[in-house]
């Protein structure tokens, strides 16, 4: 109304009292900093309703507005990983020459952080790239981010090793039916196996297997499977189980150390049958040693993917809960940013993003407007 009155007042009789707005530049394209703030999160939108047209959306969860910083297209159950030692991010995806058919090409594309533009690619031979609803551990670094490992599933399992610095495919290493890539701090990685063990694969500098061995069984998939989606704190992987145990695996050395499992639940929690559940069910704040788990009450067989009403916060040294964040909308995936005052980003049941303060548990904002269709995985800037 104000504007209408202003228009009527100025009407046909006014003369120009303000300077004209200047002519603006064409073309004009935004750039981003080479190093992103701690508060930026990559939302990996699998786009289940158009699987061949997925994308990664870069979101500033802390800003009052202009939260959407940019996007990277990706196709058909893609994987994503951001480097920390250079200003690049990576997409592993699969394409067909006729979009839905024809010749299949699997590839990794390097995007630079400043322009979110492709700066290189590595074609992966064999059409073996594993397609699964987005998991973080299908694309991982090794050897100080020099090697990039891509998970394969045909349904035989293997890992394609790429030298991402010089953009060269190095080798394919078999992982004997075990799945996913859990890198150690050395040049080795674990994979979870059907027999409740972890297969550990040691690579040489060329990306070839130098040693491969299995740990003892450290969980029981018959009675209480562990999620294949751990959070990592100081090189220790925390694998929650369906029924609320957590199985820590120390991956600092080349050979993993199986630490004692502990329970996420107190007696009352057990009575209410609280369990972890959702898609990205865990995240961590490394600096403070806190593990976050998305939880729901009245757990039962099948509820482990259904999402949760609360995020529980654990001190992993004390092995005890130090906080509960009650979600405004039930959550499907959770991620915590680093920094002194971290944010909790939640993909909610509407497939929009809710943002909370970890310090206070307070809900701060939600980010939506069809920014994403099905953002199952969130990657905080590290």
């Amino acid at each position: 109304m104000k504007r209408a009155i202003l228009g009527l007042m100025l009407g046909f009789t006014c003369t120009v009292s303000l300077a004209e707005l200047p002519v603006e530049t064409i073309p004009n394209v935004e750039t981003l900093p080479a190093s992103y703030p701690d508060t930026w999160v990559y939302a990996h939108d699998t786009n289940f309703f158009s699987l061949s047209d997925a994308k990664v959306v870069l979101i500033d969860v802390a800003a009052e507005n202009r939260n959407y910083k940019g996007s990277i297209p990706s196709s058909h159950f893609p994987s994503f990983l951001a480097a920390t030692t250079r200003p690049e991010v990576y997409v592993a995806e699969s394409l067909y020459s006729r979009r839905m058919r024809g010749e299949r090409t699997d590839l990794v594309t390097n995007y630079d952080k400043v322009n979110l533009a492709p700066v290189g690619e590595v074609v992966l031979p064999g059409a073996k790239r594993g397609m699964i609803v987005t998991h973080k551990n299908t694309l991982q670094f090794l050897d100080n981010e020099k090697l990039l490992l891509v998970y394969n599933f045909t349904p035989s399992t293997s890992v394609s090793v790429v030298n991402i610095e010089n953009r060269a495919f190095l080798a394919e290493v078999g992982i004997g039916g075990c799945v996913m890539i859990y890198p150690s701090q050395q040049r080795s990685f674990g994979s979870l196996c059907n027999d409740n063990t972890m297969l550990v694969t040691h690579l040489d500098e060329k990306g070839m297997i130098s040693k491969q061995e299995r740990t003892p069984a450290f969980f029981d998939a018959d009675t209480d499977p562990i999620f294949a989606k751990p959070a990592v704190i100081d090189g220790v992987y925390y694998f929650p189980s369906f029924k609320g145990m957590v199985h820590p695996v120390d991956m600092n050395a080349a050979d993993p150390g199986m630490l004692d499992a502990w329970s996420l639940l107190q007696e009352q929690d057990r009575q209410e049958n609280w369990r972890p559940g959702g898609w990205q069910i865990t995240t961590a704040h490394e600096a403070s040693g806190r593990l976050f788990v998305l939880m729901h009450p009245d757990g039962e067989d099948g509820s482990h993917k259904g999402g949760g009403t609360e995020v529980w916060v654990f001190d992993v040294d004390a092995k005890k809960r130090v906080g509960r964040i009650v979600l405004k909308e039930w959550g499907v995936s959770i991620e915590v940013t680093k920094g002194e005052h971290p944010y909790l980003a939640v993909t909610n049941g509407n497939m929009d993003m809710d943002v909370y303060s970890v310090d206070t548990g307070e809900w701060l904002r939600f980010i939506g407007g069809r920014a994403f269709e099905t953002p199952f995985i969130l990657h905080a800037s590290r």
Partner: protein
Amino acid sequence: MYWLDKITEKFSRQVANNTSRRHLLKRIGLTLAGGAAVPLLPVARAADTGGGSGYHGVAPQTSDNPAADPGDPASCDYWRYCAVDGFLCSCCGGTHVSCPPGTGMNPMTWIGTCKNPADNLNYIISYNDCCGKTSCSRCLCNNNVGDTPPYRAFSNNDINWCVGMENSTIYHCTTAIILGVATETN
């Protein structure tokens, strides 16, 4: 109230979930086999809106033999879908046992065990994906009972079970096909 019953704005008409059926199954004491099948998609699941298939704008169907094979194959409540996940081919130009024209049915898949309320038998159901066209997007149905993580692959349907298809591994929709009667678990 079960939090999964929450009807979400964005998905209320696209996603249905068999919560009531799952509770029913528990009530009548059905033990799902250890290797039973699982949902592909961890998204919001809306309660059946009552009437019709539960999907707004999708008309109800019957099987070829409604007496022996009761229920609506275009509903997430249909008995065979106790462990389905994905878009129901019945809503996409196929049926619960056939793929839509021009897609390819993958023989390699995951299986589940569902009880037919007409004969009270447990059937082994094979959830074969249809592949080679873009996401059908219709009748997304997601039941998670018996799911295991991907290290137990053949009871995990987070996996794109168009894997191995020669012409195309693009996922389109999912069927629910009888492989046989399960050994009595009761």
